[in-house]
């Protein structure tokens, strides 16, 4: 079952792109996405997405790493308790190095996982509604709307400066 009709406007300028998003929002369209060759604050500001939740992945991974590090060192020392010199079986200062390294390791890997899951890199948008020039020098605005709204969306995109328009069922 299709979600609706995808209308993609291709722009050469960032200000035209921002203007198109603004006009589409004014007209009441909500499902809007933008493409750009670089991250752009004006576009980000206009679309006002909620804060990325990758940070929770980072925090969870880091915390898990720290817990793993402390449990691993302490429990393995207790499992084979050989006293050397007058050192305690559980020597926390050197174990902190392992704890730190595992915090960074699992925190970093969880951040990567957070990026892969949240950005939904493969599933985000169909390639039919993508233009290879977006990775070069063009900007894009993609609107998902009802079939009867297509002409209106096309008009807004064109009046804002879109140079090309593509249509596709989503």
């Amino acid at each position, binding site marked *: 079952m299709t979600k609706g009709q995808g209308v993609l406007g291709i722009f050469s300028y960032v200000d035209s792109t921002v203007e198109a998003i603004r006009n589409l929002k004014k007209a009441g369209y909500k499902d809007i*996405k933008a493409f750009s060759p670089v991250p752009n604050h004006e576009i980000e500001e206009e679309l006002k997405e909620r804060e*990325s939740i990758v940070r929770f992945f980072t925090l969870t991974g880091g915390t898990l790493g720290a817990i793993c590090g402390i449990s691993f060192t302490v429990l393995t020392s207790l499992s084979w308790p050989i006293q050397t010199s007058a050192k305690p079986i559980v020597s926390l200062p050197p174990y902190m190095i392992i704890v730190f390294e595992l915090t960074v*390791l699992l925190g970093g890997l969880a951040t990567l996982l957070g990026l*892969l899951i949240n950005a939904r890199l493969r599933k985000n948008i169909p390639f039919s509604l993508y233009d290879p020039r977006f990775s070069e020098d063009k900007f894009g605005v993609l609107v998902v709307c009802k079939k009867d709204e297509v002409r209106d969306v096309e008009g807004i995109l064109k009046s804002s400066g879109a140079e090309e328009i593509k249509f596709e069922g989503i």
Partner: protein
Amino acid sequence: MSQETTITYSKVNEDIIKMLDKPTVKWWALFVFDLIVLGIGLLCFLYQVYTGLGVAGYSHPVFWAVYITNFVFWVGIAHSGTLISAILFLFRARFRMSIYRIAEAMTVFAVLTAGLFPIIHLGRPWNFYWLIPYPNQRELWVNFRSPLIWDVFAVSTYLTISSVFFFVGMIPDIAAIRDRVKEVPRKIIYTILSLGWKGSNWEWMHYTRAYLYLAAFATPLVISVHSVVSWDFAMANTPGWHTTIFAPYFVAGAIFSGLAMVITLVVPIRRIFHLEKYITISNFEAMAKMIILTSLIVSYAYGVEFFMAWYSGNPYEWEQFKYRATGDYAFFYWLMVFCNSLVPVLLWFKKIRTNIKALFIISLFINIGMWFERFNIIVISLSHEFMPSTWNLYKVSLVELGITAGSFAWFFMFFLLFIKTLPAVSIAELKEILPAPVKEAKTK
């Protein structure tokens, strides 16, 4: 970039992706030569495995020598990559953008090289996995109080995180290559590697956050890794090693040597691929200034070591430092001081630090000086410990030289493959420092 206004987004794509064109005859010649040197190194290693560590020139009491010197040298080289990519990213230093990809690649390949040496240094290298804690029938676990185990954790974490950071940074650029290349096999490979990146605002939002957090993790990691490497020495009571300044001294030295290696690598790449408009003199000047700072820290550490040895009143420590400056290995000690403390003084002059040829030559001196710094710390300290009856000299063997040359070939093999398969300059970040294309500017 000096000519920001004349460079457009599409010109950046064109120039950087052009670097991935079919390799030239010169590239192939260099690659084959590199493989031959690597082959010699491999043969030397196999000979050592077959014959035993005796061929490595070790003689009592020097059982850590060129291999551990190489290990510390390559770990050190790895450091400035993350400094440039992560720490300078957090400080929003714009000059990093044109050089950070090369520095990051250097980091990953240098860690891959460094990681070989503790294994090469083992008498029975096939048992290297004993260093990794894994469940076993006898319930034996590694000794977490040992600095060598800290090394295993630190270096493997560093390799993993710097590889992740390196790869994540490349995703948008790989997508740009995917969108440009026509040949089917390359298209498929870049399509897989780009993970479906399309540059939507949604992707950029998560991407910039993830990149920031990775940079925040990589920053303390850089400092921890070389501190841990320094503790391999500082935890022992060997005169010349047992000092609290080792961690900051090693970290500064690592950044110092890494920056020199970045210059050594970037200068020829810039010239061969005509990247003068992207990697400018001011980029080099900024690196030269960081070299001045780290050279001063390293030189200060050389002085403080001597002062502490004298002021502590510890006869063993003082004897060790007198021996360093005037003993059998004095030439290497003063070579180190010349390369690391005196030669970088030239960079105080703007005319020299903005001259690419001069910078390249100075960077070579620093590379040599930093290798000998590690050699001096390791070999001189061990050959002149507490008991005069144990003092002995170490002489490097041909096998060690062959393996050392092989390690350089191993590093450059990855590097040569990298510059022909992946974008050596960040396309997306270069565009970030260009003015965004606006209609208003066009109509004006």
